């Protein structure tokens, strides 16, 4: 059974993608995630300058999920370009990336996630990255707990539009807008993104949340406010994917995907592929193989020939 999917100019061997922020800094570890079965990996959110992130605690377990405020720790775009160059990403054109044998043995399909606060920042990063044989960009317009970036950008559709147009002007690679539950209508931002040149959206990022400890009377995260991820947000994420698909937006589902059934549900709702983050905390890297094996069995049982046939079925009812 072939699990490969193709959408928005992206073709990957299976629909499970490592979500941004999880293990996505070092090439060697991203390669390991890919070897464990992921169809592609998204890097941590990369910014123009390096960021150390917040002091601990940066993550707290809550019922059926985590609340995190890592603070977008990342080595900065220059270091990241170096990291990938070391592994040959600056050697050939992106076309070669479509050669599966190369992926398997050497360069894996990486989507670089970018975070910034202005058109200039995004464009300058893309210019520095675009010669690398990465398979696309994901724009973090939805981090709920860092000032001036993430949601503060995503909540401004006009700015979103300018950023994406700016990037579109300097790259031909797919652009994916990563959205969250902000203070403006997600559907509006999604449509703006697509109209401005984005190829797809990822939904959803973590949802602004916090944890307080009754004994010390304190917020637990050093940043006080963080983002909720994991199974807790799954029904919300699933609804977002359903609504985006209904609005005709190509979407990658993300939020609380822990097993093949979750992945299938997101695809039934309209996701072309899914991203997995928090589940890794509980199931480690085995989660990718488990999900893919489960999808395979599901397709067989339902006499479906490809993942594509699953996409959006729930809308028939």
């Amino acid at each position: 059974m072939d699990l490969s999917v193709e959408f928005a100019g992206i073709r990957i061997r299976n629909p499970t993608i490592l979500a941004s922020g999880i293990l996505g800094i070092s090439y060697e570890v991203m390669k390991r995630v890919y070897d464990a079965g992921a169809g592609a990996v998204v890097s941590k959110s990369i910014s123009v300058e390096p960021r150390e992130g917040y002091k601990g605690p940066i993550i707290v377990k809550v019922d059926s999920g985590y609340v995190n405020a890592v603070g977008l720790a990342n080595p900065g775009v220059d270091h990241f370009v170096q990291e990938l160059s070391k592994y040959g990403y600056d050697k050939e054109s992106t076309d070669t990336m479509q050669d599966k044998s190369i992926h398997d043995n050497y360069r894996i399909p990486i989507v670089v996630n970018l975070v910034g606060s202005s058109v200039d920042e995004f464009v300058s990063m893309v210019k520095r990255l675009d010669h690398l044989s990465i398979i696309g960009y994901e724009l973090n317009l939805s981090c709920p707990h860092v000032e001036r970036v993430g949601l503060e950008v995503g909540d401004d559709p006009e700015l979103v539009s300018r950023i994406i147009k700016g990037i579109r002007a300097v790259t031909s690679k797919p652009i994916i807008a990563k959205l969250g539950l902000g203070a403006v209508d997600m559907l509006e931002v999604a449509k703006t993104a697509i109209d401005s040149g984005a190829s797809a959206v990822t939904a959803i990022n973590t949802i602004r949340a916090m944890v307080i400890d009754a004994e010390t009377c304190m917020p637990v995260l050093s940043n006080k406010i963080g983002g909720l991820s994991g199974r807790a947000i799954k029904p919300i994420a699933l609804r977002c994917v359903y609504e985006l698909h209904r609005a005709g937006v190509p979407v990658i589902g993300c939020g609380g995907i822990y097993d093949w059934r979750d992945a299938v549900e997101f695809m039934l709702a309209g996701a072309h592929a899914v991203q997995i983050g928090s589940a890794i905390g509980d199931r480690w890297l085995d989660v990718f193989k488990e999900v893919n094996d489960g999808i395979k069995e599901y397709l067989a049982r339902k006499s479906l020939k490809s993942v594509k046939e699953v996409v959006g079925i729930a809308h028939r009812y």
Partner: protein
Amino acid sequence: MLTDTDSSMGKDRMRLVRVEEVRDESPTVRTLIFKDDLASEARAGQFLMVWIPRVDEIPMSVMLDPYDRAGYAALTVRRHGYSSTALYNMHEGSTIGLRGPYGRAFTASNGNVILVGGGTGLVPLLRLCKMLSNSTGIRVTFIMGSRSKDEVIFEDLARRLVGNNGKVIVCTDDGSYGFKGYASDMLKALLEDASSKGERFDMVYTCGPEAMMLKVLKIVDEYGLEAQASLERIMKCGIGLCSSCCIGRYVLCKDGPVMDARDILACNEFGAYARDKSGRLVRV
């Protein structure tokens, strides 16, 4: 947050504990003792994520309760930078948060084993020593290194744990106590001596400063022995999500902190590079 509703949360749930006693081990090292079932059952080499309210959350090896009480555990911390100093300054009655224990532990070996530790790196080795002392047919030689006499910690405890069958060798860099020289020098001498006598060691366990461990692993490699080392990297989440603890292809909080010598040496970063808080690879 601290409810029992979702029992599956298990060790990931943050537990608040009261520091019941603080002991000075040396002018810069203290042990904080508390009650915590999960920590008390940690395997040797596993670590806790320790919340110091208003300050930080940092990884710490689980120390044995000096009184050996069921349900008790401890942390031994060296006063160093911002966070470790804050932990060091906690006193009786202070509240800290714990999650874990996390990570891969040392695995037991049979026969003739050597432990090489320095500073707070002794912590997991002491727990290991206790575990090994419960099995028969094990002989432990425990090499404890420190800079000088007043930094020697846990000597008595180590002597108690290795038992009559075992041996504790204290080394100081300046010779102010015990053997003068590095713990690694002592290791080399021991191995040399053993090989000249046709004796054999079955396993070397090490934890301490990276430079020390690098020497230890190279020596062990020379002699064709097996070894396990407990490494350190920045650990912000402890559960394989945040990416801060990567070393080579390994995610240390999941694949470690204890790793086999073979895997450690195969990954060129050890002893040479580490990722800083932003994820940049920097020389160590």
